[in-house]
């Protein structure tokens, strides 16, 4: 562990990736993630790594596909519109069973939208980072320290399960500074016998591919992949709870909104309302088991998001109608105030008080 | 007689007009700031203006009108 330093989320992310063994970064500038690339362009040349500013987000994700094919820890980062452009490539990476790290420092959409923090790419992240049946691991840090920790975890799990990992940050987390300390650099990496890195005439040729012209073959690979997904859903749901044990009202919120919500919970508790916060750390797999565990004692759930209501679907799918699930959100780059969240809970509590 | 009229509200004090005036009669008003916090350009010797419009042509903010 390094000593604590004050660092921007975006820069801490870049440093964490380097310490996690990433030596191949491919990016294209976009606000509010530019610091990631700026940091990489400064550090990589000094440690023999690659910082390459691609001609586009599409080129960047495909460079990642290439580098990941060779077995190295590769990374790209972007923000919302840039992520849309990467979706074809991400689908290929998933279909080729390659591990890599993709970062979305979300901003307001749709279209060019704005550059302030948002969470309106939740559905895209958890359900459709491209065409076809597949998932990626989705991590949602809420502090700069967690950005760092999840970068390490993301690489590990991506390699363990041979699939892409997405770190879902946002403009708030990317731009803010908080104290952070770094784990020791990773020095031992998993073997990658599948990598296309030149067989040196010592093994049969490796092929990285996502094409299966025969439907039953394609189906088989997809079904096998989903068997792995099922394992992941069983083993890797991550979340954090704050005062949930006795809560009447549980706010479900991730990333930036979970911070706001935590403040709101404090206020609510001070007012005698038994509120709690369940913060998904993995968005896929979604921590539905944790949510379900609270159904017996909860009067309702409130999903708080910086969008028009996306994660609330996952909460509803977990809760299956057993208690009400409500939504409160702001979008377009507006960060909800704790007081608004307090009000939203009050409204949900409604008649109860 | 010619004159260059500078809209000081719009001027950003970039100095490009100053740099091209053949009569060297433009300068930034160092001790005056407009609402945007810029020192606007001003004509220091209006009588010398030849109305060549070079200042107007180069002004990126269309802050200058030239009459002749």
């Amino acid at each position, binding site marked *: 562990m390094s000593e604590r330093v004050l660092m921007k989320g975006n820069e801490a992310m870049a440093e964490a990736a380097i310490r996690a063994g990433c030596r191949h970064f491919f990016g294209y500038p976009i606000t509010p993630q530019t610091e990631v690339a700026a940091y990489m362009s400064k550090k990589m040349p000094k440690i023999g790594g690659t910082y390459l500013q691609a001609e586009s987000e599409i080129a960047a994700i495909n460079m990642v596909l290439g580098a990941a094919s060779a077995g190295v820890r590769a990374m790209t980062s972007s923000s919302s519109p840039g992520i849309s452009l990467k979706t074809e490539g991400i689908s290929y990476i998933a279909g080729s069973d390659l591990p890599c790290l993709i970062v979305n420092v979300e901003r307001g959409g749709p279209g060019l939208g704005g550059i302030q923090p948002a969470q309106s790419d939740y559905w895209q992240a958890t359900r459709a980072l491209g065409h076809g049946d597949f998932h990626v691991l989705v991590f949602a840090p809420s502090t700069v320290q967690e950005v760092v920790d999840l970068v390490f975890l993301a690489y590990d799990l991506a390699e363990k399960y041979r699939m892409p990992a997405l770190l879902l940050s946002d403009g708030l987390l990317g731009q803010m500074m908080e104290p952070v300390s770094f784990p020791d650099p990773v020095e031992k990496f998993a073997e990658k016998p599948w990598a296309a890195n030149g067989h040196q005439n010592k093994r049969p040729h490796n092929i990285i591919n996502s094409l299966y012209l025969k439907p039953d073959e394609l189906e088989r690979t997809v079904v096998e992949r989903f068997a792995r997904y099922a394992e992941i859903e069983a083993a890797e749901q991550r979340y954090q709870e704050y005062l949930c044990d006795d809560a009447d009202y549980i706010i479900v919120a991730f990333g930036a909104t979970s911070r706001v919500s935590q403040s709101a919970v404090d206020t609510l508790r001070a007012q005698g309302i038994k509120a709690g916060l369940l913060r998904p750390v993995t968005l896929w797999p979604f921590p539905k088991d944790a949510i379900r565990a609270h159904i017996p004692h909860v009067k309702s759930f409130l999903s708080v998001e910086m969008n028009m209501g996306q994660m609330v679907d996952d909460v509803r799918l977990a809760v299956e109608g057993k208690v009400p699930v409500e939504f409160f959100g702001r979008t377009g780059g507006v960060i909800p105030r704790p007081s608004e969240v307090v009000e939203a809970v009050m409204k949900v509590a409604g008649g109860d008080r | 007689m010619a004159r260059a009229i500078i809209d000081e509200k719009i001027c950003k004090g970039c100095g490009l007009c100053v740099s091209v005036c053949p009569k060297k009669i433009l300068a930034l008003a160092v001790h005056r700031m407009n609402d945007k916090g810029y020192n606007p350009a001003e004509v220091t010797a209006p009588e010398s203006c030849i109305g060549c419009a070079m200042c107007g042509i180069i002004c990126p*903010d269309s802050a200058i009108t030239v009459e002749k």
Partner: protein
Amino acid sequence: MATVYKKSALLSDVPLHYCPGCTHGIIHKLVAESLEELDAGGKAVGVAPVGCSVLAYNYFTCDMVEAPHGRAPAIATGLKRALPDGMIFTYQGDGDLAAIGTAETVHAATRGENITVIFVNNAIYGMTGGQMAPTTLPGQVTQTTPYGRDVTTAGFPVRVCEMLSTLSGVAYAERVSVDTVPNIRKAKAAIKKAFETQAAKKGFSIVEVLSTCPTNWGLSPTEALEWLRQNMMPYYPLGVYQDRTANEKGVF
């Protein structure tokens, strides 16, 4: 007294958001004046890029469309096919046109698409805070080439006019600069000629304008003009790179 110079009526009253001395503003004027002189404001539709000039849609008083980053030529193509008699132009930065938009640029050009492209080459990504652009000079320091652009890893700049002039659809391609008043005058003539090329349906026209970014170059506006002259002009020589406008049918 007569007015010998004033703001073009094709520019709105909205104050430009550009940094002081940024030559984007000059280029805006040339576009507006050219359209005005051709009396084309009413049938013009401009396409704004993503880049510092993204808000161009607020500045030009003709109809405007804001494009995704790099895709302005494709949008202009859609507009032109829908409005064959419209005066369709894009206004794009170097990142927009020559990095992410390379394919759209090359193909609008090779199609001989009857549109006019105003290409603002300032050797940097201005809007996002000064990263390397495809046109950043070898050795040039930017946010993402902190030790200077190293061509062995970051490659060489793209010379857009030179590259496009190899394509059969290009009716007119010229590189100009707005560093001095005479050059500004030449730039305006080029821009006007590009619009005339379109009006005569002679094919694709592009004017590459060498431009400054005082903010991200870390120079004063006048120093920036000097830097442009000293560094950009030798690498990006001014001149006409393609001119098929003398043919009655242009490129076709």
